[in-house]
């Protein structure tokens, strides 16, 4: 029956790349995420290398993607500021989408590595934490860039006694972004794995479809929230 399983539950085992006693990388996450970045960049460069008035298939597809991320940024940040932060939102969206789909669409189990298992980079909490902290840095720097020192006035609005709540909010925003993405990806993989180990044929397919849908939706939500947080501080 093991031959049927294209993935299995492995918790806490990673392919460690050690640099020193305390510094090590999770090899499988680094490998898959660099692969995702490589494929995405290749795709984007090939699609936009020679732009035509009448677009071909690839350029057409990329135009749809551009319209989507532009509409996310535009609705959250307004017409005067969105273009500055569009690259950030688009990068987050494409990377999360690529990572989530890579975990679901590529049968990583066929590739053997010494320990751990190749999977979606977003089911490692370090990746999602990194994305969430990047979002934090982005909205802090956006606030400073556009409002200057007046950015701190945000903390005592609408009244001075809201100060602790506003400070706590700065920590809960990245935390919730982090857990939302991580939990959704892990929950999806766990459900598929558990159902695969009960009934390996046909039955898991609808769950896998649901997982594909949910992971694309999570990419959309992560990008929307990042844009909304930036939009909130610069409005």
């Amino acid at each position, binding site marked *: 029956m093991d031959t049927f399983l294209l993935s299995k539950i492995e918790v806490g085992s990673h392919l460690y790349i050690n640099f020193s006693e305390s510094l090590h990388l999770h090899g499988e996450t680094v490998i898959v995420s660099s692969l995702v970045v490589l494929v995405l960049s290749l795709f984007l460069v090939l699609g936009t290398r020679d732009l035509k008035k009448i677009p071909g298939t690839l350029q057409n597809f990329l135009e749809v993607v551009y319209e989507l991320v532009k509409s996310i940024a535009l609705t959250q940040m307004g017409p005067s500021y969105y273009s500055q932060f569009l690259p950030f939102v688009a990068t987050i969206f494409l990377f999360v989408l690529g990572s989530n789909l890579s975990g679901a669409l590529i049968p990583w189990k066929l590739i053997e590595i010494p320990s751990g298992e190749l999977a979606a980079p977003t089911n490692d909490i370090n990746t999602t934490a990194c994305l969430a902290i990047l979002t934090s840095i982005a909205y802090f720097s956006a606030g400073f860039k556009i409002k200057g020192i007046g950015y701190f006035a945000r903390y005592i609005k609408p009244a001075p006694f809201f100060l602790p709540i506003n400070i706590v909010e700065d920590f809960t925003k990245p935390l*919730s972004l982090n857990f939302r993405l*991580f*939990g*959704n990806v*892990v*929950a999806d993989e*766990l459900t598929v794995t558990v159902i695969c180990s009960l009934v390996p044929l046909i039955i898991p397919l609808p769950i896998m479809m649901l997982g594909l849908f949910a992971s694309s939706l*999570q990419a959309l939500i992560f990008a929307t929230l990042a844009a909304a947080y930036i939009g909130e501080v610069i409005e």
Partner: protein
Amino acid sequence: MVDSIVSAASVIAAAIAVGFAGLGPGIGQGNAAGQAVEGIARQPEAEGKIRGTLLLSLAFMESLTIYGLVVALSVLFANPFVG
């Protein structure tokens, strides 16, 4: 002996965490979907917009359940109280 009690308590805690985390968002999602259907019935031409908003807000509610799941998973697989 202490470890086995902790493990048993962790399993029960995980079950309770997932169960109760599913309760509230379930009710909320039901409400939201019901209201959306009502809105579509009243104004069928706004269906696309309603569907988009509904999916986005459903995913937000879903994330509350996911928080419970993350707690359950960390209690089961990365328990800070064992060993």
